[in-house]
C-alpha cells in the first residue's frame, strides 16, 4: 500500500489538531478564506452587491416617513420625550435601525451559511475537510459584517445629509464598544440559528421567524416601555435591547435609559451565555445530522 502511494507521489500531510497555536492559525486562515470566497461570489454579481448596500436605507425610509406623517411632518414627538427624554424621532429611530442590519447578519448570513453550501453543492466537500465547521460559519459572518458595515455607512451618509442627526460625537467610542459586545453575543446567536438550519430543512423560516421576533423585542423605533411586560422581560435575554439602550445613552443628549443596570455587565453575561449555548447546540446538531445521515437532505 505504502509502495503504491510512493509510486503515485502522494504526500502525507499532518493537520494541526486540538488546542494549539498551529491549529488556531489554521482555523483563522480557514475563516479568512471563507470570507474571501464569499466576497468573490458577491462581487461576481455587482447588481446584487449594490442592491444589498442600499437595502438598509430602503428599509429605514418608510419607518421614518411613517413617523413623520404621524406627527404632521414634524420630527419632534412630545410622547417620545416623556418616555425616553428625547423627542427627536429621526435620531432615535436611526440609532435603533443601524443595529437591525446586524441582526440580519446573525440570523441570515450565519444562520444560512451551512445551508447555502448545500445549495451550491459544496457541503459534502467542506464537511470532509479537516476544518472546524464553526470556521465556515464565522468566515461567512466576517464577510457579512463588513458588507453590512458598508451599507450602514451609506445609510449614515444619506440620513445625515437629508435629515441631519443630533448625535454626541464624544459618545461614539463607548457606543462602538457596546456595539462590539453586542456583536459577540449576536455571533453566538447566529451559530445557534445555523445549527437549527441544519435540522430544519426550511431554514429560511427559522431565520425570518427569529428576525421578526427580534425586531419586535428590540427598541428600534419605539422604547421598550410600550411593549407588554412579558415582552419587555423577554427582550433582556437578547443582546439588542441592552445594546441599543446603552448606545443611545452615549449618543443622544438627555436620553433616559428604559433598562436599569450596567449595560456592559449585562452584555458580557449575554456574550458568554450565547457563545457557549450557540457552540454547544451547534456541535450537538452537527453530530446528530451526521449520525442520522440527514445532512444532505432537502
Amino acid at each position, binding site marked *: 500500500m505504502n509502495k503504491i502511494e510512493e509510486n503515485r507521489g502522494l504526500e502525507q500531510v499532518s493537520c494541526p489538531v486540538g488546542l494549539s497555536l498551529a491549529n488556531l492559525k489554521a482555523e483563522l486562515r480557514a475563516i479568512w478564506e471563507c470570507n474571501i470566497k464569499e466576497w468573490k461570489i458577491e462581487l461576481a*454579481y455587482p*447588481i*446584487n452587491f449594490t*442592491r444589498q448596500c442600499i*437595502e438598509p436605507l*430602503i*428599509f429605514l*425610509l*418608510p*419607518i421614518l*416617513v*411613517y*413617523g*413623520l*406623517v*404621524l*406627527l*404632521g*411632518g414634524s420630527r419632534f*414627538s*412630545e*410622547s*417620545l420625550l*416623556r*418616555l425616553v427624554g428625547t423627542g427627536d*424621532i429621526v435620531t432615535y*429611530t436611526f440609532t435603533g435601525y443601524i443595529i437591525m442590519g446586524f441582526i440580519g447578519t446573525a440570523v441570515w448570513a450565519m444562520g444560512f451559511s451551512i445551508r447555502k453550501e448545500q*445549495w451550491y453543492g459544496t457541503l459534502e466537500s467542506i464537511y470532509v475537510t479537516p476544518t472546524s465547521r464553526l470556521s465556515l460559519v464565522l468566515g461567512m459572518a466576517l464577510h457579512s459584517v463588513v458588507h453590512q458595515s458598508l451599507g450602514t455607512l451609506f445609510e449614515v451618509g444619506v440620513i445625515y445629509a437629508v435629515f441631519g442627526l443630533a448625535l454626541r460625537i464624544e459618545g461614539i467610542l463607548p457606543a462602538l464598544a457596546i456595539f462590539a459586545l453586542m456583536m459577540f453575543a449576536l455571533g453566538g446567536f447566529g451559530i445557534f440559528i445555523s445549527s437549527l438550519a441544519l435540522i*430544519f430543512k*426550511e431554514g429560511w*423560516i427559522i431565520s*425570518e*421567524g427569529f428576525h*421578526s*421576533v427580534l*425586531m*419586535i423585542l428590540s427598541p*428600534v*423605533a*419605539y*422604547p421598550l416601555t*410600550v*411593549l407588554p411586560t412579558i415582552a419587555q422581560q423577554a427582550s433582556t435575554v437578547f443582546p439588542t435591547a441592552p445594546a441599543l439602550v446603552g448606545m443611545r445613552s452615549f449618543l443622544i443628549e438627555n436620553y433616559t435609559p428604559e433598562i436599569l443596570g450596567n449595560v456592559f455587565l449585562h452584555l458580557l453575561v449575554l456574550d458568554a451565555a450565547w457563545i457557549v449555548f450557540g457552540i454547544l447546540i451547534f456541535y450537538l446538531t452537527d453530530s446528530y445530522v451526521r449520525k442520522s445521515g440527514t445532512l444532505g437532505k432537502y
Partner: protein
Amino acid sequence: MMKKSSDASVFRANFFVVWTEVAKNMKFLMAYPVIFVFWTIFPFFWFLTFIFQGQAIVGGLQSSSFAEIAGTPDYIPFIILGAILNGYVLTSLYGVGESIRREAYQGTLDYLLSSPCNKAFILIGKAVSESISSTIYAVIQLVVCIVFFGIELTLGVIMPIILILILMILGLYGIALMLAAFSLQFKQAHDLAHTLEYVFYLFSPVRYPVQALPFWAQIVGKFLPLTYALIAVRSLVLLRQNFLAIYEQIFLLFVIDAVALFLGFYLFNWMEKRTKKSGSISQY
C-alpha cells in the same frame, strides 16, 4: 364543426395544464405545513412594530396629523389593511416571479419548457395557486384583525373588496410575468424580485398615504396596482365611502391590468423563444 371540437379540446388541454399546476403547488404547500403557518402568523409581526412605533410617537391610538392626509385618525386599521394587501405583492413577486427559477433549481424547468403546451398556462396555474394560498392567509389575518384590532367590515363592502382584490391580483401577476420573463434570460430572479419589492415598499401607500411622499415618488406610485387597490379598500372600509366614490381607482386598475398582462405575456413568450434558441434555459 371540426374547428369547434378542436377549440374545445385546446381549451380542455389548457385548463388541464392550469389545474395540474394548481394541484402540484397545493401539494407542495401541504407537504410543508410550516410554510403555511409562517405566512399566516408572521405578517402580524411585521406590522406590530409599526403599531408600537405609532403608540410611542403619538401616545395614543389616533393621530390628528395623520387624519389630515389619510382621512382617518386611526393609524392601526390603516397599517393593518396595508399589510394584508401587501401580502399579495410578496407572494406574487416571490411565488410567481421566481417560480421559473425554482423549477430550474429543482431540475424540472427543461421538462416543463419542452412539454407540448402553451407555457403561459403553466404560469397562470402558478398564479392561480398563489392567489388561492394568499387569499387564505389574508382571510385568516383579516378575521384575527376584526376580533383583536377592531376593524369593522360590513357585508355591503365585501363584494366590492373582492372585485378590487381580483383586479389588483391580475395587475400584480402581470408584473410577476414580466419578472418571470426576465428571470429566464438574466437568471437572478431573486434580485429582480427584491428590487421590485423595494419599489412597492417605498412608493405604494402601505404604511403611509402617498401624499406624504415627494411629487416624483407619487408619480412612481401611480404605476403600481397596489396603490389604487389600497386607496379603494381603505375608502370603503375606513372612510365608509360608497362604490361610486372609488370608480376612478377601479378604472385605473383595469387599465394597469390590461397593460401589465399584455406586456407580461408578450415578454414571457418572447424571452422563452430567445432562451430556447440560445440554449441558456438551464444555465444558472
